[in-house]
C-alpha cells in the first residue's frame, strides 16, 4: 500500500481547475475556511466560477479575495449578509455576481445528496415561503414538503485539521461544518491540512472523512485566521 495523495504545494493542489467550474468551499464564518487554497486559486487564475459556501466571504481574505478578484460568477449560500461581507455586498449591488440563497439545512442536505447518489429529496423546510416558489411540493403525512435536488461540484476546497496520506481527515471543533458533505460531492476534492500523518496516524474509529472522498492533500501547517487578525486589529495589536 503506497497510496499517497499529498501534492508538493498549493499551486499543485489547485492545478487544473477550469474556468466555469463549480467549486464548493468548506467553512462557516471563520471556522473551516480553506483560505490558503483560495489564495492559490486566485494565483491559478480560474474565472467565471460558481462558488458554494455557507456564506459569501467575510473580511478581505479567502473567498472575499476571490470575489474581489472578479473570479466568481455566482454564489450559492445560505447567509451572504454576515458582518464584514462588504465585498460580496458591493459586487451584488453592482450586478456583478449572481446569488442563490438556500436554507442552511437544505444546502447541507443537497450537497450530501450530491455525494451520496440521492436523486432528490422532500423536505418540509421552506414550504410556504418564497424560497419554495416554482418548486415541486407534496403533502406527506399532512405536512407540505418541497422537492430539493442534489448539488454536485467539479471541485471542493476543504480545510482539515489532520490528514493521512490516504486522505482520511479529521477537523478541529466546529470547523467541521460543511466539509464532510462537500468532500463527498465533488469530482476533485482538494484538502489543506494543518498536519499530515502516515497511514495509521489517525485512529480508524476517529476518521471523520474517509480517504475515498479525497483526491489531493497539501500541508498548510499554520493556516491563517482572519478572525484572529480582525480581533487583534480591533484591539490595536
Amino acid at each position, binding site marked *: 500500500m503506497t497510496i499517497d495523495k499529498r501534492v508538493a504545494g498549493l499551486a499543485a493542489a489547485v492545478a487544473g481547475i477550469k474556468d466555469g467550474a463549480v467549486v464548493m468551499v468548506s467553512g*462557516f*464564518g471563520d471556522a473551516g475556511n480553506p483560505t490558503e487554497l483560495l489564495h492559490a486559486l486566485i494565483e491559478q487564475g480560474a474565472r467565471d466560477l460558481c462558488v458554494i459556501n455557507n456564506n459569501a466571504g467575510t473580511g478581505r481574505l479567502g473567498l472575499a479575495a476571490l470575489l474581489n478578484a472578479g473570479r466568481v460568477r455566482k454564489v450559492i449560500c445560505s447567509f451572504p*449578509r454576515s458582518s464584514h461581507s462588504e465585498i460580496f455586498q458591493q459586487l451584488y449591488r453592482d450586478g456583478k455576481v449572481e446569488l442563490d440563497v438556500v436554507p*442552511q439545512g437544505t444546502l447541507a*442536505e443537497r450537497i450530501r445528496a450530491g455525494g451520496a447518489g440521492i436523486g432528490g429529496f422532500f423536505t*418540509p423546510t421552506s*414550504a410556504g*415561503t418564497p424560497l419554495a416558489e416554482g418548486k415541486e411540493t407534496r403533502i406527506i403525512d399532512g405536512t407540505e414538503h418541497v422537492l430539493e435536488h442534489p448539488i454536485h461540484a467539479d471541485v471542493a476546497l476543504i480545510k482539515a485539521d489532520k490528514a493521512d496520506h490516504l486522505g482520511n481527515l479529521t477537523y478541529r*471543533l466546529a470547523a467541521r*461544518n460543511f466539509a464532510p458533505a462537500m468532500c463527498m460531492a465533488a469530482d476533485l476534492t482538494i484538502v489543506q491540512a494543518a498536519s499530515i500523518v502516515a497511514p495509521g496516524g489517525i485512529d480508524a474509529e476517529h476518521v471523520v472523512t474517509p480517504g475515498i472522498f479525497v483526491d489531493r492533500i497539501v500541508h498548510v501547517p499554520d493556516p491563517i485566521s482572519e478572525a484572529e487578525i480582525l480581533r487583534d486589529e480591533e484591539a490595536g495589536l
Partner: protein
Amino acid sequence: MTPLITPLAREQMAWRVAQDIPHNAPGGTYVNLGIGMPELVANHLPDDADIMFHCENGILGMGPVARRGEEDFDLITAGKKPVTVVPGAAFFDSTDSFAMIRGGHIDIAVLGAFQISRTGDLANWSTGDNTVIPAVGGAMDLAQGAKRVFVITNHQSRDGAPKIVETCTYPLTGRGVVSTVFTDLAVIDVTPAGLMVREIVDGLGLADLQAKTGAPLTAAPDCRTLARPQN
C-alpha cells in the same frame, strides 16, 4: 398610550423566555438560540440547568462566550461568536446538525421575528426590501423543525406597527410554526383556538394590548401579570 406601564427591557424579555425553558426535565432540554436577542436567553438560565445548547454550525453543548484573548475561532456559534463548550459536548457536521433540527430533536428554538401571524406563521428573514441582500441561514430549518418555537420580540416595531398580525406581509420563514410569542408586553400562546394571552404587563388591559396587536387576542383563563426578574 398607557403611561403607567413599564415594558420589559431586552434582558428582562430574555429572562422571561428562560423561565419557560424546562431546567431539569428528565433527559435534559435541547435548545437552539437564534442570532441576536435570542442569544441573551442563555444569560438567564442557571449554570446547573439541565439544558444543552445546540449551534447549527455543529455544536451540542455550547458553553459561555469565550473570554477576550482566549477565543478559538474554530469554536464559534452560528452567530460567529467565539464560545466555549461544556463537558459532554459533541461536534458534528452540518448534515447531522440539521438532521437534529429537521428531524424534530431540538426541543425549543428561540427566534426573533419581524411578524407573527394569528396561526403562528413566522416572518423573520426578509422584509421583502429588494435593496437588502436576502439571507436565510438556518432560520427556516429551525422554524420548521424544532418541537417548539419561542419568538422573542418587541410587541411593536420601531414605527409602532404591530408585529403580531392577521396575515404576515413580509416573506414567510415558516407556516404555523410558532408556539409562543414573548414580547415586552405579554406572553401569548399560539393555539388552535387562536392567540391566547397568558401574561400581560402590569397596568395594561387586554383592550390596550389588543390595540397594539394586529390579530384578535383572547385572555387565557389563568391570564396573569407578566413576570419579570426581581433584581
